[in-house]
């Protein structure tokens, strides 16, 4: 069984991103970049399938500028067998990413595609669902547990109010939620080995996809600030303020 794992290069989750003062975009000068945390969980899950003998090959794929090779190398160090970069300097939106990934999936014919449920930069939560839709594959989004069965995959999903289990025919798309697994750290020998693993590059033109965005960002501004609050000295004072000043309890 072949597993395709699309990943995204994003600003590291520890960085607090602010809007530029001229409101033309987020200020990303010299910030640390990393694999999107949910994508890291996706890589880990695919590698575990391989380690348990349920998958033969894990292919990491990403869409982005040439620096995205760094994140693909990280995925290779975590255990992916080979990598594919669709290189473009255009800031792609989920629909065009899904189209590019569909084109890769048509070539590679994976049995399972595992992606992060959302990227922590644009917070769109769309790519996996769009890819599944374009491929006419079933989808198990927000997965906290997966189990391969004969020709099928059972996916436990994190939904509003609890957990839902669905059964999907393979090939299928799964998007990861936080509790699916805890990703490992890449060891130094594996980081060295990853440098020698194959990494192929395509352009969107070669895949016959036009990545021009449909959505234009007119401005990026800071969120409204909350006025500074007060420190209360005691529980009594807190209750008094909530009752008589904020009037939110009776």
């Amino acid at each position: 069984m072949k597993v395709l794992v699309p990943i995204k290069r994003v600003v590291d989750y520890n960085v607090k991103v602010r809007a530029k003062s001229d409101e033309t975009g987020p200020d990303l000068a010299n910030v640390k970049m990393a694999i999107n945390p949910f994508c890291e969980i996706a890589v880990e899950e695919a590698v575990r399938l391989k380690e348990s003998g349920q998958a033969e090959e894990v292919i990491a794929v990403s869409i982005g500028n040439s620096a995205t090779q760094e994140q693909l190398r990280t995925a290779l160090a975590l255990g992916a067998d080979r990598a594919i970069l669709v290189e473009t300097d255009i800031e792609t939106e989920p629909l065009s990413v899904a189209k590019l990934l569909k084109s890769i999936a048509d070539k590679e014919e994976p049995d399972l595609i595992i992606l992060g449920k959302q990227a922590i930069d644009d917070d769109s939560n769309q790519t996996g669902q769009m890819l599944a839709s374009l491929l006419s594959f079933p989808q198990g989004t927000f997965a906290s547990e997966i189990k391969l069965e004969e020709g099928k995959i059972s996916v436990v999903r994190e939904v509003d109010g609890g957990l839902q289990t669905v059964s999907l025919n393979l090939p299928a798309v799964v998007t990861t939620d936080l509790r699916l697994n805890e990703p490992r750290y890449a060891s130094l020998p594996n980081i060295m080995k990853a440098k020698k693993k194959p990494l192929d590059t395509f352009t969107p033109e070669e895949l016959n996809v036009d990545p021009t965005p449909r959505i234009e960002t007119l401005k990026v501004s800071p969120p409204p600030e909350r006025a500074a609050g007060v420190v209360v000295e005691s529980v009594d004072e807190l209750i008094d303020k909530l009752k008589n000043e904020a009037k939110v309890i009776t």
Partner: protein
Amino acid sequence: MSILVVAEHDNQELKKSTLNTIEAAKKIDSNIDLLIAGSNCNEVADSACNLPDIAKVLVADKNCYKDFLAENIGILISKIGEGYTHILAPATSNGKNYMPRAAALLDSAQISEIISVISDDTFERPIYAGNCIATVKTSDLIKVITVRTTAFDECATEGGSASKELIDDDNDLGISSFVSEELAESDRPELTSADIVISGGRGMQNGENFSLLEGIADKLGAAIGASRAAVDSGFVPNDMQVGQTGKIVAPNLYIAVGISGAIQHLAGMKDSKVIVAINKDEEAPIFQVADYGLVSDLFEALPELEAKL
């Protein structure tokens, strides 16, 4: 212009998130139809006919829509949606699941979780965990949009007389099936629609200590939430998580207990009307967004608060 709102319901009643979504739709145009896809959902459809802002209630009542499987509902939305300029759904776990599927079939670049409507093609949405607000304009002819429900009021529910139209269209793709559901049973209000939310973080130290929040929640009629740190530490299940990757809440009163205030958590609660922080670390970033901060050991403050409420 014409707008299709995809209703969130459980085959028995319409969910409040539908009302917030209709309110968002009204800011685009007044010509709004409502799609109810489900199974044995006629009661939902009948009650929806009372919504004063809805012209037509479209009912797709088929067994294949019973469990809201994204594969089947996605196709249905894309087929019906072709006749509209905008398709809106609440950004619930269902909406997030099927809307991008419909958008891809319509070749439309979806706009997720809008928090305001600037014009019929321009919307505001949070990015980077709400640290930035992007104003985005789409050139798609059919605009597919999910709505952050906490950013919009609820529309009125009575006084309307919408017509009802049955959609006889079975889209059972047969590639996925519902197996089971484990929903947390609770007498408390739902986290995303509660007036008051009390949440615990890593400072709670373990799952048992969340019982300290329960007594207060019962007295206030509050829902109980948690930070990602508390979920990651295994104290409580993930459906209690408030934050960028969990639930987005905006109650009248949010009480954060033993929560440091990581940006991922603030993204899920900072639109609350009044925020209270209880934390023994006076340097904790949660105090920067709190209206009322109490620097205190939660194991002393919580029993006292429960006793005095």
